[in-house]
């Protein structure tokens, strides 16, 4: 299936505000992350976390068609 992944900060600068990646029909956060990392090529970008439907998700969490997936680079709010 295809998953659109939202990108922010330095990731957005490098790859645009989102990328669409292809992952197996039964996929995890780790699968999505690896597919996005492949797009980053050799660029030095800070290690991100992943959010699914606005919540931080573990690498082994499932990703389903229609989920809102986002890469969260190190946050610096406050």
């Amino acid at each position, binding site marked *: 299936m295809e998953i659109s992944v*939202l990108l*922010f*900060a*330095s990731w957005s*600068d490098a790859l645009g505000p989102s990328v669409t990646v292809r992952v197996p029909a039964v996929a995890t956060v780790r699968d999505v992350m690896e597919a996005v*990392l492949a797009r*980053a090529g050799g*660029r*030095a*970008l*800070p*290690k*991100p976390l992943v*959010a699914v439907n*606005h*919540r*931080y998700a573990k690498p082994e969490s499932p990703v389903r068609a229609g989920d809102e997936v*986002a890469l*969260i*680079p*190190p*946050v*610096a*709010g*406050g």
Partner: protein
Amino acid sequence: MRTAIVDHPLDPAALLAEVASTESGASTLFVGTVRRVNEGKLVSGIDYSAYGPMAESELATIANEAASRFGTTRIAVEHRLGTLALGEASIIIAVSHERRAAAMDAQRFLIEEIKKRVPVWKREHYADGSREWVDPTAGVVAGGAA
């Protein structure tokens, strides 16, 4: 209890008034501001951006955690986005509580959790014209590159 991501200048007195109550013995206000010097570099301003819907939900979650942990719902938090000049406030946290110790504990919990968890990013503008995304984990985590 109210938390918000906003794009206008923040008003500390308004947030303080919002949490005030005759049930409270103490109110605290935390104001985060744009500092002139960071890591030895001269800053001229900061762009704040966010993953809006998640930032809002994460802020609300943290405020709920503070409420149940410290026993007060008199909490108001606003985080500002956009381009901020030196000295401008990026975040205001107001807490009011019967007891001063709990008001101060809640204040600290809120800012520390917000810094760790809310998806907001800042790009500092430096006096020399350069810009950089601030990465609080840089130099902390080995091999941080993707």
